[in-house]
């Protein structure tokens, strides 16, 4: 069996709970009073994803493009298993690393070393593997004695180095990556770039959400353009990018 991602007619609604929707009293009274009852289902719901279907096999590098709020990050979270679909089905085979949030599980009160240990445990590593993870991250992030101090006191550059080293230390078969990860890539040192490219090449399947055209052209073999939670276009980077970049003129 090889790595694979299948999304089959996925729909996802994002309920927004704010203000009175969070209130137990309001909900109970709505249920009790017949006059207001019709109102009870009218909570604010964002139709985040509509009828998304695609299939990825080893070697596929999928880029997700679309304006802010088009559903790129929601789709990545769905593939990562964080959100569950309203209808349809998602199947992801293979070890997965989802780089969605730069501070994933990073607790700033804990020391760098403790954060590394936690990350290793998230991924189900055993003690020797966690030691190797710590060595690898320590060497790359180059934090020296700061590794045993709370992350809270790190400079912002050190936090970025630690976060980056941790995120790229674990090599998955399926790599899901949000754009933040590349946002600062001009500032990254040469070895950071090499390390990231190494991980991307090592992954069987890559799903990447980004605004940057050159990133898509460099890494992706297929592009899906999301618009309002729907697939607007799906094809080769050249095809889709041409249409995507021309959208404003149309």
């Amino acid at each position, binding site marked *: *069996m*090889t*790595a694979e991602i299948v999304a089959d007619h996925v729909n996802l609604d*994002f*309920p927004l*709970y704010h203000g009175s929707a*969070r*209130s*137990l*009293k309001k*909900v109970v009274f709505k249920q009790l009073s017949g006059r207001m009852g019709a109102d009870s289902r009218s909570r604010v719901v964002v139709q985040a994803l509509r009828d998304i279907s695609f299939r990825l096999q080893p070697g596929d590098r999928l880029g997700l493009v679309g304006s802010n709020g088009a559903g790129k990050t929601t789709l990545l*979270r769905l593939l*990562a*298993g*964080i*959100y*569950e*679909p*309203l*209808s*349809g*089905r*998602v*199947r*992801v*085979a*293979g*070890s*997965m*690393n*989802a780089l*969605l*949030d730069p*501070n*994933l*599980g990073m*607790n700033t*009160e*804990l020391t760098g070393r*403790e954060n590394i*240990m*936690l990350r290793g*445990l*998230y*991924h*189900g*590593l055993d003690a020797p*593997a966690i030691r*190797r*993870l710590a060595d*690898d991250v320590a060497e790359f992030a180059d934090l020296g004695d700061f590794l045993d101090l709370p992350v809270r006191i790190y400079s912002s550059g050190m936090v970025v180095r630690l976060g980056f080293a941790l995120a790229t*230390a*674990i*090599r*998955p*078969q399926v790599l899901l990556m949000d754009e933040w990860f590349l946002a600062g890539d001009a500032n990254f040192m040469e070895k950071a770039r090499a*390390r990231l490219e*190494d991980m991307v090449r*090592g992954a069987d399947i890559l799903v990447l959400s980004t605004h940057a055209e050159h990133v898509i052209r460099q890494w992706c073999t297929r592009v899906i353009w999301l618009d309002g939670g729907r697939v607007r276009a799906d094809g080769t980077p050249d095809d889709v990018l041409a249409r995507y970049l021309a959208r404003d003129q149309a």
Partner: protein
Amino acid sequence: MNVLISEPAKLPVLDIGSSQGGVARLGDAWQDLRAFFPLWRLCWTLGWLDIKLRYRGSMLGPLWLTLSTAVMVGSMGFLYAALFHMDLHDYLPFLALSIVLWNFVSGMVGEACTTFTGAEGMIRSVRMPFLLYAARVVLRNLLILGHNIVVIVVVDALLQTGPGAVAWLALPAFLLWILVALALSVLLGALCARFRDIPPIVASVMQMAFFVSAVIWRPEQLGAQEWVLNFNPFFTMFEIVRGPLLGIVPSQDVYVSAFVSSGVILLSTVVLFARTRGRIAFWV
């Protein structure tokens, strides 16, 4: 560069869909439970780090827990023994045990409300079985209890009292407590994530329960009205552990009431968790 995750022996597969119908949803909940067990080391580490963090940089560290409980038991012991005209030798071991156990119960229930909202960052960035968050809360409170037990042991040693062999009856009851605590962490955690006005309600209920559940007074003091206590689930759940540790075998009525309450909690947790599991990530 060393590769840390090599090809696993068995390919992990994530397969999620919208499960319709109760049975399918129960199946998903069961999967969540099964996915939790391999993560017990992570859970233990998270629970222990929670305690360590709370007291990092303080001189006594987690011993503050022990110390503050000791001060509370000592001061309340003298005060209430005087107020209720009771013998301190008799009352102090009772109070030490009751306060330490009740602190566990109320701490547990209070923190159960933030099981999921407190782990918001993690829930939104990585898929983990939801039971992990519940077990972390329970573990954290068990560790606190472990520190406070010292107070009971010291009081018993100083006054040379002890419960005797009956105390073993507390063991199965305590295991039931842990099970119910896990259930409550899921139940209250989910409800409080959805409805943000539940935590203050829970807090005031627990405050009231402290006074009506024979924690700082003895059930016998109610005299002929003692039977009323059997309808207080807080009391009966509490008594199945405390009673044996005081050398008292709880009555059959107490056990029945405690088992019925536990059953109701466990059952409603299973139903609620099966129904809401997929929504929790949207609620936190």
